[in-house]
């Protein structure tokens, strides 16, 4: 007893609130690919990822950059003729890869998401400048320089916050979150 779940079953189980058609219904028509603004940058297109999941190619799927390059624009989900929430599936893959610590090295997305969530759990509000130094260096000096210029221009227009904003009732807020994630918080 207790057969191991297939990768497809694992991913399906992660689609907690999804009301879409199961991804097993995919007919490989590639409508998702034609609507996707990021497909050209992905190792494997959304259509291919669905096929790879069905073929239980767990390692190859998790090692791809595809799901971390999804911009969550939901064009695929809106246009899929079978009604599959492809963008929701990409979210599920992100969660799975963070949960298992099995995403490709060198991507900024996983690190950014972790840091962002930790920040919100602490203060209740987003303050992006505190996140910037950790990841901008990864793009190299040219982008860094461009971003410093952008930041200075924002500052001169009064559009860059100097201090982090936080909610007033931080303590009850943290107690609330602790009731959802009781031990240790987010990885």
């Amino acid at each position, binding site marked *: 007893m207790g057969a191991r779940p297939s990768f497809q079953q694992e991913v399906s189980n992660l689609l907690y609130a999804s009301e879409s058609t199961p991804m097993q219904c995919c007919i490989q028509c590639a409508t998702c690919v034609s609507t996707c603004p*990021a497909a050209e940058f992905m190792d494997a297109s959304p259509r291919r990822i669905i096929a790879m999941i069905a073929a239980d190619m767990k390692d190859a799927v998790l090692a791809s950059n595809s799901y971390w390059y999804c911009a969550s624009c939901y064009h695929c989900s809106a246009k899929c003729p079978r009604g599959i929430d492809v963008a929701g599936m990409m979210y599920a893959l992100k969660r799975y890869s963070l949960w298992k610590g099995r995403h490709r090295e060198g991507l900024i997305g996983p690190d950014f998401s972790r840091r962002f969530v930790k920040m919100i759990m602490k203060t209740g509000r987003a303050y992006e400048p505190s996140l910037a130094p950790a990841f901008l260096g990864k793009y190299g000096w040219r982008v860094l320089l461009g971003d410093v210029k952008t930041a200075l221009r924002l500052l001169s227009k009064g559009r860059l916050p100097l201090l982090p904003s936080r909610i007033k009732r931080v303590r009850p807020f943290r107690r609330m979150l602790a009731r959802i994630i009781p031990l240790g918080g*987010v990885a």
Partner: protein
Amino acid sequence: MKTYAYFPGCSLEIVAASYDRSAVEALRALDVELKELDDWNCCGATAYFHIDEILAHTLCARNLAIAEKQKLDLVAPCSGCYKNLYFTNEHLKKDADLAEHINFALEADDLHFFGKGRVRHLMEVFVEDIGVEEIRKRVTHPLGGLRVAAYYGCQLLRPRKDGEDVESPTFFEELMKAVGAEPVPFPPRLRCCGGSLIVTYRKGALAMVRQLLESAEENKAQVLATICPLCQVNLECYQSQVNEEFGTHFSLPVLYFTQLLGLALGIAPKRLGIGAEFVPAEPVLAAFR
């Protein structure tokens, strides 16, 4: 005077302060009041859904419960916040187990989600609750055929909510016509601006921004109008980086739709936050006043 609970979201606090100011001013001119949601918290953006769905819904539910306490419908001007708040509201209404689980957490902050409130995008307040015809009647300073690329972006329309037209919506163009602007053909109006990829995958996001700017320029738009702070920042603040990356020469002002609306309602540009753009809008706007 109709009143809404107003969820500005983290972007509107500073980087998109002109969206905040112009939304409040334009609605006041139309006899609608926005009352900032008491002690609101971040909607979780996309990052929270990358970590844990229930945690993400809890964050949104706290805001929904506060709005319910104030007995007001909740308005979000940012399309990302709107999408998160809207769908959490829907999921919790339909899923009693999820609601019970999250209400246990909300108790720690003395709150409860009943599922009585509605979530609106700021654009919906204008085009559905007030109505394009009513706005047309209130225009005192029509925009004289200003050529506008009306950019819908993603999350106001997608994921699909109920029977609405997500393939070929026209409400933004109609609103622009009502204030005397001329919406230009803008084929990628429903395409993505790159969203948070601007942080996590810069190269891809800049390419997406480039496609949008290219189309707006081809169609001789004088201004690109947005309904979301993330779109505004990507399209405008990263325009110079697009130019550096691709050797292009874009110089297109990107304004919030509420700023154009405010001008048409006779509100002074300064009170609408005009002047805080990287690409100044004043030169094109001056010709129409």
